[in-house]
């Protein structure tokens, strides 16, 4: 405390001294003169002559100028003032060279922006605390299946047992996402299809959710006899209820069941997923009223995601050990490998930290790492370029530096001055980068969400830059100053004053030493370009590959029409009848070529899988499958290769029939036709034993990727013919093929649906939109990678240009001498370029090696990338070489236009 007072008093004194510096200086001079006079007087008294005494006094006193400077150290804040002076000087220097400043700030800004945008995204997913109460102790519970680390769900009975018995966890919540039809009892309007969250009663209280109006769900709401209530989102309240004040207590119809709106949740309540539903309701009530088709009593109907908070002192391991016995099917013998039961055999519970939306684990790291490497490379290229630009600038400013050194500025002071200039560039770049990143991330997130075809809720991702983002940006800025500023500053101030002042660019002087650094920069950024180019090409190629896989399907004219909301396998008879009617009547509609019913919609996501075996002895394989009506293949345009299609006659027969893709035929009966073989599908029955159903393969269709773009479907697909009972059950989607004759097909279908059931929600979506939506993440990744690659390339081209301009400038006199001695400009050009091209080629070579390493990094993400082949590599290398040649040739030619006589006369 006393020390602080002393320190403050000193600061006050310094500040005061700064203000009356002139007076202090005068006083000091006066005082020192007085001292010297007295000293001289005394010396004179000792017998020296007046002149001798004055001289001796001066000698004994010391250098007045230096003493005054040292005294001034405590007048004001000289260190700070030097920094300010450097800043002023740097700003002036940058203003004087607006072209250079613009390029430098834009380059750093773009590079830092790209890094920052990526970091912001990763930060909001991985580091930002999940926006719930007490996020630091939040954990997710997941089941392990067959000892594999899958993120399995829990049944409601298991949830009740875990929540009731746990001593290590508190506030265990259950959540299941879904979609519901929300209707107004007043009628007239069609019901809305909205995203729903089926939750435990304590969900809001445990996660800190509060109500904007009315109340949130509370523990009593999920009691067996509780009146059915829902909480709606603030977004839904605005859009569907027009912010009505009387929404609380209002009666609404959810999937045909009357419920009461208890309240509106606050906008900032997210819960456990970033995709926020529009309606929350107790899972028990939803199951009891048949809003969802789940069974609460079953121990194996696992559909709930569980979260909780660790109690003080408890560990995740303890929590896992405590809940594992509750859910594990360990009492039963292990089912045979490959059977369907094995895929549901829960072997334990893992408890994972859920302090952020995405856990920071190896899987996340593997996916994020290539991205970090790519954006870091852009920054490296930008820094290398700036270093080159600054080197060139240092050369141009040799005279200025030399003059300042000649008048006594120390080298350290000049280095600091030049670094301040770089720091200014980096600071401006960082500000620009932050702004760019902020804009890009928000715009991209919005665009991605808007392109998703079905509303499953609102994506609420907090993309505001956190303190970490700012720190990261500052760190990047500082790192880039050191990388691009230090070496040029050191080079720029190691001068031979004599030659510099005479205006000589060093001819044969220290060129070798500085060239090595410069050469490294050139080769390095070319190498980085190769890596970025290959990464971009890989992503673009993967995107094209995955979109091309559907060329065997012709779904451009195919609509998927959905009437009502699927009650998770429990479609009401009324809705089933309405759907059958829609299917029948839409087939008659003008403009509809044909229709089909399916359990899996093409490109709506991964299809359900079936355990099938070709022969008795073979282990079952897991293949995506679909249950379809006979018209399916004609609707989606999938060609029949062998055998025959399904016929309506098949469904009446007792024989079960299947059609498989060519790949599936190869999987089960390599080298054979496949038609006429028997396929054995393995289902787990209620009793737990596997039931084998034989199907006769009647046809083989062309291979076509039909489900998820990202799933491994190399083993092929299986199509089973829908039984009349399945069709009548109503739990099948309707596909329609348009004949292209009418543009208003969707409105016509909508009118037809309204005629059949005016209240049920109706959606008609083009299948191509589903395809598009699946491709969105990859499309964005590819677009971003291409942009990043193009940015890197553009920066590298600018850098090469600067390098050559710099090198030619450095060798101007050498060139002039050669031309004067009779060399043709061509010879000289070749001599200048030879060296640069060698560097570029060396860089390309290094880049290929790095790109191969990068391919492994991409492979480790687990995403099925299509790597670039040798042809692609060669194309990228040639392209880069061409860009490098152009970037080198232009400045070289420009430089050679200089009249040799003029260049020589400059000496």
């Amino acid at each position, binding site marked *: 405390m006393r020390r602080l007072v002393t320190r403050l008093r000193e600061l006050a004194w310094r500040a005061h001294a700064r203000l009356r510096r002139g007076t202090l200086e005068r*006083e000091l001079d006066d*005082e020192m003169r007085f001292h010297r006079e007295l000293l001289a007087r005394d010396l004179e008294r000792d017998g020296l002559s007046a002149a001798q005494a004055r001289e001796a006094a001066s000698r004994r006193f*010391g250098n007045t100028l230096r003493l005054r400077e040292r005294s001034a150290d405590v007048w004001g804040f000289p260190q700070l003032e030097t920094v300010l002076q450097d800043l002023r000087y740097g700003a002036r220097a940058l203003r004087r060279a607006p072209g250079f400043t613009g390029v430098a700030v834009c380059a750093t800004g773009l590079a830092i922006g790209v890094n920052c945008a990526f970091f912001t995204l990763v930060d909001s997913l991985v580091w930002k605390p999940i926006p719930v109460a007490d996020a630091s102790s939040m954990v997710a519970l997941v089941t392990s299946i067959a000892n594999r680390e899958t993120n399995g769900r829990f049944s409601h009975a298991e949830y009740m047992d875990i929540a009731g018995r746990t001593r290590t966890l508190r506030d265990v919540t259950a959540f299941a996402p879904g979609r519901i039809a929300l209707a107004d009892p007043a009628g007239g309007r069609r019901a809305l299809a909205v995203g729903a969250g089926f939750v435990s009663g304590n969900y809001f209280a445990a996660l800190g959710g509060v109500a904007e109006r009315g109340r949130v769900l509370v523990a009593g709401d999920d009691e067996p006899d509780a009146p059915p209530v829902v909480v709606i989102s603030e977004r839904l309240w605005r859009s569907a209820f027009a912010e009505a004040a009387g929404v609380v207590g209002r009666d609404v119809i959810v999937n045909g069941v009357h419920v009461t709106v208890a309240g509106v949740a606050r906008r900032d309540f997210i819960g456990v997923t970033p995709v926020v539903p529009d309606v929350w309701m107790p899972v028990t009530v939803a199951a009891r009223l048949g809003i969802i088709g789940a069974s609460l009593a079953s121990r194996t109907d696992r559909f709930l995601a569980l979260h909780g908070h660790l109690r003080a002192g408890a560990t995740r391991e303890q929590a896992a050990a405590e809940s594992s016995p509750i859910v594990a099917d360990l009492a039963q013998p292990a089912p045979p490998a490959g059977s369907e039961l094995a895929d549901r055999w829960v072997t334990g519970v893992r408890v994972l930290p859920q302090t952020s939306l995405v856990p920071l684990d190896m899987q996340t790291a593997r996916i994020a790492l290539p991205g970090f490497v790519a954006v870091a490379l852009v920054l490296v290229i930008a820094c290398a370029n700036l270093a080159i630009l600054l080197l060139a600038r240092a050369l141009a400013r040799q005279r200025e530096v030399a003059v300042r050194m000649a008048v006594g500025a120390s080298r350290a002071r000049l280095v600091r001055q030049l670094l301040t200039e770089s720091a200014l560039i980096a600071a401006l770049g960082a500000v620009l980068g932050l702004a760019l990143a902020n804009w890009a991330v928000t715009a991209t997130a919005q665009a991605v969400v808007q392109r998703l075809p079905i509303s499953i809720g609102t994506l609420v991702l907090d993309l505001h830059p956190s303190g970490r983002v700012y720190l990261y940006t500052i760190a990047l800025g500082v790192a880039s100053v050191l990388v691009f500023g230090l070496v040029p500053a050191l080079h720029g101030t190691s001068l031979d004053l004599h030659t510099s002042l005479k205006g000589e660019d060093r001819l044969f002087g220290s060129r070798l030493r500085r060239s090595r650094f410069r050469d490294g920069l050139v080769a390095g950024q070319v190498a980085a370009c190769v890596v970025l180019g290959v990464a971009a090409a890989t992503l673009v190629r993967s995107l094209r590959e995955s979109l091309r896989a559907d060329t065997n399907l012709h779904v451009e004219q195919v609509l998927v029409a959905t009437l009502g909301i699927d009650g998770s396998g429990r479609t009401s008879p009324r809705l089933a009848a309405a759907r059958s009617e829609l299917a029948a009547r839409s087939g008659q509609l003008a403009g509809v070529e044909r229709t089909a019913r399916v359990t899996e919609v093409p490109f709506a996501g991964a299809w359900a899988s079936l355990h099938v075996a070709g022969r008795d002895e073979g282990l079952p394989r897991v293949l995506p499958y679909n249950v379809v009506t006979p018209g399916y293949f004609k609707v989606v345009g999938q060609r029949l290769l062998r055998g025959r299609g399904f016929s309506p006659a098949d469904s009446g027969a007792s024989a079960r029939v299947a059609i498989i893709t060519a790949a599936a035929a190869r999987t089960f009966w390599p080298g054979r036709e496949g038609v006429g073989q028997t396929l054995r599908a393995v289902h787990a029955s209620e009793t737990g034993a596997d039931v084998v159903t034989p199907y006769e393969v009647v046809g083989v269709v062309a291979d076509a990727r039909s489900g998820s773009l990202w799933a491994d479907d190399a083993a092929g697909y299986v199509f089973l013919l829908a039984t009349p009972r399945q069709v009548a059950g109503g739990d099948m989607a309707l596909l329609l093929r348009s004949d292209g004759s009418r543009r208003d097909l969707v409105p016509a279908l909508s009118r037809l649906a309204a005629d059949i059931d005016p209240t049920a929600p109706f959606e008609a979506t083009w299948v191509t939109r589903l395809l598009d939506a699946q491709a969105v993440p990859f499309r964005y990744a590819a677009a971003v990678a291409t942009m990043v690659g193009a940015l890197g390339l553009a920066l590298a081209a600018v850098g090469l240009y600067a390098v050559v301009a710099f090198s030619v400038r450095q060798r101007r006199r050498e060139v002039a001498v050669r031309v004067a001695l009779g060399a043709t400009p061509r010879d000289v050009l070749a001599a200048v370029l030879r060296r640069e091209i060698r560097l570029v080629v060396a860089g390309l070579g290094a880049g290929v090696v790095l790109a191969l390493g990068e391919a492994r990094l991409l492979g480790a993400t687990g995403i099925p990338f299509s790597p670039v082949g040798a042809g692609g590599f060669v194309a990228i290398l040639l392209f880069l070489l061409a860009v490098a040649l152009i970037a080198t040739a232009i400045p070289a030619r420009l430089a050679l236009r200089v009249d040799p006589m003029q260049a020589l006369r400059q000496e």
Partner: protein
Amino acid sequence: MPTGKPEILPGTLEMLALKTLSFGPLHGYGIAGHIQRLSGDALRVEEGSLYPALQRMQAKGWVRSEWKQSPTGRRARYYTLTAAGRKQLAGEAESFDRTVAAIARVMRAAEA
């Protein structure tokens, strides 16, 4: 400048000046002369370096200064020790004594 006089130890100039001022206010020349006299001209001081030290000590609040008429009739700046300066002097003197004693012990041990 080969003289047999030892260079003043770094940092001790301030202590010596404080000690000098503890006997009463003095101007710079007086302080320098006092140190020189008492040390028996044994310590060589670049006399001017006293002034940056005095500025530093003013900033730290150890000494105060005011312009007064000197006996010769010329105006001179007189420095006065403050309470904080007195405290500082006591602390420095004590640690100086300890250091000297410690050095002396080591030197004697080396001779034995």
